[in-house]
């Protein structure tokens, strides 16, 4: 690290404190998502529609094991919300920022690459907070009764899932063309919703999907979230799978991400 003495606080060419730089980036990233119509559609409107659709209609067969349908569906929708923000929305935003040189420009300001990453991660968490409030309110209105003891565990699972899917988002955004990321990020979201074990537990998926989804980060996140909020406990296997994916994807993102 550098050993140069920093100039007096008000001197020209002095950086703002690190926390203020990261906070500014967090606010900037969060506003960018909440202002963008398409991003709002994917992160807020889609999960709420899925919640209402799965609760109020029986288009999709789900074996709730005798539990109230809203109690069974809501954890999966929260897992979906986490993936839509941490993965789909973040992958697309970062890919276009990378193509447009935004990442390079910000890397030359006092924010730096580390501050940029921190700001992105906190921005994802801020959007997720908005999602939890909106989805939680709708679910409660529909009669949702989460297991009181599981809320803290669910928050922890959500953090791990966020780390995992943000890493995947950065891996795609940092290696592929922006247009490719746009197509792929939406496609992957749809595939994970339909057959990835997010909403429908892996053991209820047909044939080989059951085994596949169990070991996908989506299936693990869905199972862990359901375990926490249904009060049955977070399955250790799901937690181990999610942690392993997080480590692998974080390594790959750090190794293969190209800034330009």
């Amino acid at each position, binding site marked *: 690290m550098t050993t140069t003495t920093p100039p007096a606080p008000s001197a020209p*060419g002095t950086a*703002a404190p690190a926390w*203020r730089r990261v906070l500014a980036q967090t606010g900037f990233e969060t506003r960018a998502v909440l202002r963008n119509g398409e991003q709002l559609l994917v992160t807020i409107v889609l999960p709420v529609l899925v919640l209402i659709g799965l609760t109020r209609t029986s288009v999709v067969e789900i074996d709730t094991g005798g539990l109230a349908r809203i109690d069974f569906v809501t954890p999966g929708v929260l897992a979906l919300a986490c993936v839509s923000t941490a993965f789909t929305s973040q992958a697309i935003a970062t890919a276009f920022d990378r193509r447009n040189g935004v990442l390079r420009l910000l890397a*030359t300001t006092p924010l730096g690459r580390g501050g940029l990453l921190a700001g992105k991660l906190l921005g994802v968490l801020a959007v997720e907070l908005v999602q939890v409030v909106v989805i939680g309110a709708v679910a409660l209105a529909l009669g949702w009764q989460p297991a009181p003891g599981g809320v803290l565990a669910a928050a922890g699972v959500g953090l791990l899932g966020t780390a995992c899917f943000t890493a995947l988002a950065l891996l795609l955004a940092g290696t592929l063309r922006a247009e490719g990321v746009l197509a792929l990020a939406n496609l992957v979201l749809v595939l994970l919703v339909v057959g990835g074990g997010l909403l429908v537990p892996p053991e209820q998926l047909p044939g080989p999907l059951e085994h596949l989804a169990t070991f996908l980060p989506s299936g693990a996140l869905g199972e862990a979230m359901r375990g926490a909020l249904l009060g049955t406990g977070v399955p250790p296997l799901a937690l181990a799978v999610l942690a392993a994916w997080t480590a692998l994807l974080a390594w790959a993102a750090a190794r293969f991400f190209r800034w330009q």
Partner: protein
Amino acid sequence: MPTSIAPSGADGAAAPLRPAEAARAAVHVQGLVKRYDGRDVVAGLDLVADAGAVTAVLGPNGAGKTTTVECCEGLRTPDGGTVRVLGLDPVADARALRPRVGVMLQDGGLPTGARAGEVLRHVAAMYAAPRDLGELGERLGIGSFARTTVRRLSGGQRQRLSLAAAVVGRPEVVFLDEPSAGMDPQSRHAVWDLVRELRDEGAAVVLTTHLMDEAEDLADRVHVVDHGRVIASGSVPDLLFPDAQDDRTLRFDAAAGLDVTAVAAALDAATPGTTGAWLVTEPQRGSYVGTGPAGPRALAALTAWLADHDVLASRLTVGRRTLEDVFLDLTGRHLR
């Protein structure tokens, strides 16, 4: 390939700086090498930029200008040579340098979804004591589009916003990559005024350009770059009149294919004692440039020669050599 026409010694780029000079230089690049796919894009480039001066890196497209400044900005790691900015290594000492260095990228790097004013406020938030945004915005005419999203800005508006972002943190060194590309004349002059002001405040301004008038009007020192090397450097007068001789040019348009050697001989004959002083070329079909001691007699000799050969010049001007002439002499006239 011409080598250096700069006066050897003091600010000749190839000569290593004495330690005192190196310490004073805000930017000091020595023997920089950068390869892409095994090809040397920058091949042993030397460059110096001082505080309180505007340094232009002038060269054709693909000469290695952008790669060079990106190495100075810490965005690329050199494959060889040394780069020092304010005495520090742009990659290893990035954290210490970032607050002190302002950067305007060639491709802008502006987030497209945000409003112009918001982008500028955001970049300003990275600094402890940023410039007054109202005053800076007014200088560059940003107020008129502050509420427009970057996506909808014109090329010139984006450039002005990028420049504002580069200088908002009161940097000691400013790198501007093609700052006036895509700008209308009014914007260009606003940008040039700001660049001069930054220099007067003591900043080292390094700008890349292929615009001759930009280098000629703004730069205290010009480094002409081609094929990844500096092929000439010095002040604008140094480059224009390397022999301290106030050569002037006679330009004229006439029928294509005139005997330029005969024209040069006629001009030489009219200016006694200067045999061989005149060089006449036809850079474009039917467009001639004669360089030499262009006095009244030379002018008369030229028109007499044209009259003798029954050629009517459709245009005839007397002027001094421009940086463009020097540049084309150095880098050749073929397209690339």
